[in-house]
Structures are given as structure tokens and as C-alpha cells.
């Protein structure tokens, strides 16, 4: 599978996740968000950026608990919870946030 954006072809896997992490840019993220029906706000970008930074460091997406803890730091205690995370990404952090961040889909019993 693949999609085209601004004259460049991006390869994705069967579920629409970007195959090559390095090809990611904000335009790609915006395109994917549009596909998912998500209007990217600053809070959405914060989550995506954190996911990408964490991935660069650890080669895996962060545990959801770590993501939520980080959100608490970023947005304050009233928004540092899974309800807010699901407000931002209704299909869940793995299905949507990782996809928009250009990370591979988490595998295993998750």
C-alpha cells in the first residue's frame, strides 16, 4: 500500500502505517490525521512529538501510562488522564496517535 502527497509516494503497511519512519514530516502527519478524521490541534501535536522523541530514544512507543504521565506534565493534572487521551485520539493511542506520528503499529497483546 502507498499514498501520494505533494508529488512524493509514501509506502505504508496493510493498516496504513508508514513503513519508513524517516520519511515522516508534518505534511504526512496532517494527511494521516485527515484520513482518520482528526483535526490536529496543538495538544495533538504535543502527543505526536512526544511519541516521536520517545521512539527515537527507545526504539518503541512509550507505555500508555508513560504517555499519560507526560501529558500530565504538558497539559496539567486535569488533562493527564486516559479520558483526555481518548478525547484527542478516539480510536486509541496505538491505533491513531502512533499512526499519525509515523511509528509502526505496536504489536503483541495490546
Amino acid at each position: 500500500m502507498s499514498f501520494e502527497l505533494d508529488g512524493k509516494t509514501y509506502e505504508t503497511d496493510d493498516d496504513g502505517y508508514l513503513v519508513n519512519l524517516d520519511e515522516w514530516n508534518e505534511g504526512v502527519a496532517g494527511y494521516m490525521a485527515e484520513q482518520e478524521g482528526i483535526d490536529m490541534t496543538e495538544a495533538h501535536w504535543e502527543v505526536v512529538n512526544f511519541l516521536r522523541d520517545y521512539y527515537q530514544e527507545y526504539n518503541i512507543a512509550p507505555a500508555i501510562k508513560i504517555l499519560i504521565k507526560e501529558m500530565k506534565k504538558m497539559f496539567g493534572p486535569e488533562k493527564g488522564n486516559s479520558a483526555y487521551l481518548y478525547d484527542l485520539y478516539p480510536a486509541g493511542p496505538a491505533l491513531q496517535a502512533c499512526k499519525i506520528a509515523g511509528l509502526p503499529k505496536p504489536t503483541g497483546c495490546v
Partner: protein
Amino acid sequence: MAETADTAAEQEEVLTDQDIVTGAKEPSLKPADVKAPELTGDIQIPHLVKGAMAKSKCHAAKPETMEAMGFPGRLVDNWEEAAVKKLGELLTKYKSLQVYLDICVRCGSCTDKCQFFLGSKDPKNMPVARADLLRKVYKKYFTTEGKIFGSLAGAAKLDLELLGEWYTYFHQCSQCRRCSVFCPYGIDTAEISMAAREIMDSIGIGQKYVNTVLVKLHEIGNNLGMNPKALKATMESTEEDIQEEDGVAVKLPVDQVGAEVLLITPSADFFATPHIESLIGYAKVFHQAGISWTLSSTASEAGNFGMFIGSYEHMQKAAMRIRKAIEELKPKRLIVGECGHAWRIAYAFWNTMIGPLDNSLGLKLEYPRPQHICEYTLDLVERGAIKLDKSANDDVIPTFHDSCNVARATRMGDRPGGQFEIPRALINAACNRYVEMDSDTIKEKTFCCGGGGGLLSDEILDVRVQGAMPRMQAYHAIKEENGANFFALICAICKAQFTKVFPKYGIPMIEVGGIHQLVAKAIELGAKE
């Protein structure tokens, strides 16, 4: 250049055999479009809707994944011959396969027992019909009856259409063994579907989800692909969380040589929610019991999807990481966290595949080898070594979902049925308000969550949502009747599956959680008397 491009475009138009079998060029399912059946509290036996699930196919593994597993990258040219040869080989290795292909009388007693049939109405999801997809081929190529009578005896040639049905319906079986409970001969469709998947892998058509996970397990040591650095960082972060919440320095040690206990737990416990809440529960129990324990960064997975594809070789190879960890970390005891199929492999298979698990590996003989975390915690509670404050869970009305592999393929404690009693006793020790679901849906008759056996993949979310239907009806009924609001589990797959399908049925995912999540809330931390 232009010519090559044209040829490539043309080739894309033509469906290969592989595309036909795996449905690769069919439009993908959109998870958001999947709708759940209505909740009434009743589990009805449906009338047949032929072909209802024929299009629900798993993604096929990529050639590089297949090759990393030692399988052909794509469907081999002589696949019919190769499949028959592989079936012949398996028939000499598995008594279960030989006996179960031979002795089914098609009495029909299993036909209304599978959650995937009850949910989907597709007759090929009836256990006997599913097994017959393989039995047909067995009869055709291996039995006198099939050679003489052909289709009158239910024999059939393995053609592309039938292979496509194998790919569809052997990936709509969660290998939960519910059918086997009700079969007069104990025919276990799990054994048949494992064999069928092993044959399919051997001719180059593997399922993506399971094979991708296995490659990560073999390369990195867990299903997630979480490396030691990430594991350690996650454990440290979790320690901080506990410190912040409870004010107690509970540790989650990794790779501690000489710790008393080696804990082998599903890697989802390090990553997903609610799984991680149970991990916190185990850590608090060890802390309060004053026992040194450790995780292993190289054997950081209890799950073992080798079983799902019927591969003894891959199952043994994955399990070997645990033996290596025992040799390196030198624990005295081996304890397994909340994971259904892992407990089956640990309880019933480890001793065979990586054993003997005894003092030759430095394990103490006075403890069960391996021991389930529920056995361990309940024993501490009963001896008074840890204290649980039930009132901490008074906001919770829990019920317990027996996970298929735990219920029907393992035991806890010394007596048959301990696998039912011990988890319930532990919940009752941690809560005041336990309620039980309908007796036809629990213990050995429990329904699968709908995501076991390698089905926990989003492209078949329709299969998973329908497969969850019987369990959801039973939970709905107990909610209506007794106000149940917590769905306690001891399986990582069940947890992931239900957090996904609960919202489809209009139930909040927060109601899903592990038994040790309840223990974590109830345990009294601090100095002992």
C-alpha cells in the same frame, strides 16, 4: 523503463494464487465500521447464514517475515503437493491429529458451542465444519474410504478455493477448546487448526499478526519488541508512579542475579493499560511479602505465539529464552504472571520443552514449578503473610471471566478445578461484592474472549466483536441483575480484546482489569506486625 512499468501495472491487475487465498487485494475492513450485535442478555443459537464470514481474512505475512521464520516467503508453486506432504508428516507426529481426523462421527453436539459461530452465524465456524475443511483433504489423500467414495464420504481435493477457506476459517478459531469439552470423544479443534496453520506456513501463506510477533519475540525477547533499555526505563517510571501514589518504594527489578523469584509475565504488562496495573499488583505483593524477585530483559515475555501456529519448533525456541534466563539469573522459584495461553505453555509444556524444571536448574523442589501468580498471592493471603483490605474495593462489583486456556488446559493448586477456585478465592479476598455470571458461561464452559489464538488483530475486528458476543451477553445480564461493574481477568489477550470490544458494545473499557489490579488496590503496604 516504460515497458517494465507497464508489465508491473499489468501484473497488479492479475490476481496471483496467493492473493486469492489471502484476499490480499480485497478492500480492508475499517475498524470504525464494525458494529456489535445487540445486548439482550440471551445467547441464542442462530440460523445459518452461509458465507457470512467468508470475506473476513487476516492480513498475510510479508515475505521477509515468513523467511525470518524459516518459511517460504510466498505461496510455493507446488502448494497442493507440499501441503499434502506436510499433512502426512504431521500425522506421524501428533496422535491428536491422527485420532481426531479419524473418529468424528458428525453427531452435531459441537455445532452450537463455538462463540464464533454463535456470533457470526457462519456454518463454517461450527467446530465440526471447521475441522472438516482439513478432514476432507485428509480423507482424499490418506484414507481408503475417501479414495473409494470421494465426496460421498466427505473427501475433497485441496484446490485454491478450499485453501482459501482454510485461510479464512482456521484464522477464525481461537483454539479455545470449548468444543472439545462437549465432544463425546474430546475432539479438540485447536489441534486441527494448529495443524492447518502449520501446513499453511509451510507452503508460504502465514498470518501477519502472529508471525510478525514471533519474529520480534525471537529477535528481541518479547512480543512488543521492547528492548532492555526501554524495559528498564518503563520499570523505573512505574516505580516512580507507585512511590508517588502510595509513598512506598516498591521496586520492579530487572536482571537481578540471585533473586529468589524469576517472574515471567506477558510483555503487555510493561506497556498496555490495564495490563500494567496488574504488574504493579505483582510488585506490591512481592514487596510486601519481602521476597526478592526479578524480571528478565531477555526472557521478557510469557506469551508464546508458537502455539498458535502449531509450531513445536518455534514454541520451543521461544521458551528456551526462559531456560536461559533461569540459568543466568539463578532464581529459586519460577512464577508466571496473568496470561492465559502462556500459563498453558508454562504449566503443561515447559517441563517437556525446556525441562526438567527441577534442582538441576537450581529451582527449589518444594514449590510448584512453575507457579501461577494467583497461586502465589492467595497462599500469602491465606498464611497471613500479606493483608488485603477488602473495603478498598467497595466501589467495585467484580465478576470473573475464566480465560479459555487457563480453564480448559491447566490447573492451579493440587486439586482438579483449582484453576477456577483459586482466582475466585483471590478476588474474594480482595473484594466484598463478587458476583458470578451464568453457570453455562463460566469454568470449563467459559466462552473465549474472541481474540485468542492469534486473532487479536484489527483487520478481523468483525470476527473478534462477533466472537465476544456470548461473553458480552453474559456480562450484560449480570450487570442488569447485580450491577456488576468490573470484569476481572488473568489473561493479557483477554484484557486487550475486551478493552477493544467493550466500547463497541457500549460498555466502558475501564471496567476491564486484572485480578492483581484489585490486589494492588487492596494490599496493605508498610511495616508488618
